[in-house]
């Protein structure tokens, strides 16, 4: 069921809507832009983040005159869960050189959905390394392409070095139902985590 969009289109359905941050990450070209476009109720946006040449995030405008800063465009989408709550999806590059941006963006996030492509699993190693280091809770969604090879789940878990309780689901980033399922797998995983876990 699709709820009626805000009459103004771009604005929050209600000014008191609670906003929850969810990270969508994974290697370059894995489908982050596509899944955010599929899930978002607003036309997908690009947020601009200023970084220094060494990868630090510029959270104020010191150094903006410095030519060593660079701007990164990140995919962003929003999905309302009723009128009182919305998930804000922040597409975050999964490469190590964006490490500082990752740290900054993941602050306050509910969790992360990590996309992987079975045709090039090794591309996911960098993002898996970063997420482990950050301690942010996550689920992995395999974005299935028509020519994706089908591997046994155990082999994929081993290749991605996933703990047994980390959800590993398949989705088609172009398809709303399977993409929503991937988010649901993440939320259910977060709910089921032991309350005092400090991993």
């Amino acid at each position, binding site marked *: 069921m699709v709820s009626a969009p805000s009459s103004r289109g*771009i604005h929050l359905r209600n000014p008191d809507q609670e906003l929850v941050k969810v990270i969508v990450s994974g290697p370059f070209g894995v489908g982050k832009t596509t899944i955010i476009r599929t899930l978002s109720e607003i036309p997908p946006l690009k947020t601009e983040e*200023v970084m220094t040449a060494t990868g630090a995030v510029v959270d104020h405008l010191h150094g903006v005159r410095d030519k060593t800063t660079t701007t990164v465009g990140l995919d962003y989408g929003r999905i309302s869960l009723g009128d009182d709550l919305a998930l804000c999806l922040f597409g975050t590059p999964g490469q190590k050189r964006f490490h500082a941006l990752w740290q900054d963006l993941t602050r306050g996030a*509910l969790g992360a959905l990590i996309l992987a492509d079975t045709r090039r699993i090794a591309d996911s190693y960098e993002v898996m390394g970063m997420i482990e280091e950050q301690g942010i809770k996550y689920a992995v969604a395999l974005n299935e392409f028509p020519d994706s090879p089908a591997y046994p789940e155990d082999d994929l878990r081993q290749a991605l070095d996933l703990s047994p309780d980390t959800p590993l689901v398949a989705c088609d980033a172009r398809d709303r139902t399977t993409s929503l399922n991937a988010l649901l797998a993440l939320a259910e995983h977060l709910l089921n985590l032991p309350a005092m876990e400090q991993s």
Partner: protein
Amino acid sequence: MNRRLIPPYVWTGGRTRPTRNVLDRLTVLRAAVETIPADVSPAEQRVLEILGDGALPLAEVAAHLSLPVSFVKVLASDLVDQGLLIVRAPAALILDEQPDTQLLERVIRGLRALQ
């Protein structure tokens, strides 16, 4: 697109830091006035225009205006100081703790309802 033609530090009058450090990408912004005063800067005017009579998270204002998030933090902070903007912290920001069970249950119910 609304590409900026002049660098952000010109628009902020050379100031580089927001006066408030509490502004987050998901801080919700709303105009505090119905009519935009004539003496606001062009950038501030654009922030108030995009908000109209609705509310938007700071990151979305920045994206709509094609301005860096860090720059919009400065603008928003200035607008708050002038009494022209109301900000609300993201209520569900999860910091160094297990997410609230009730919140997660609401997220799960909400996602299921969309399927």
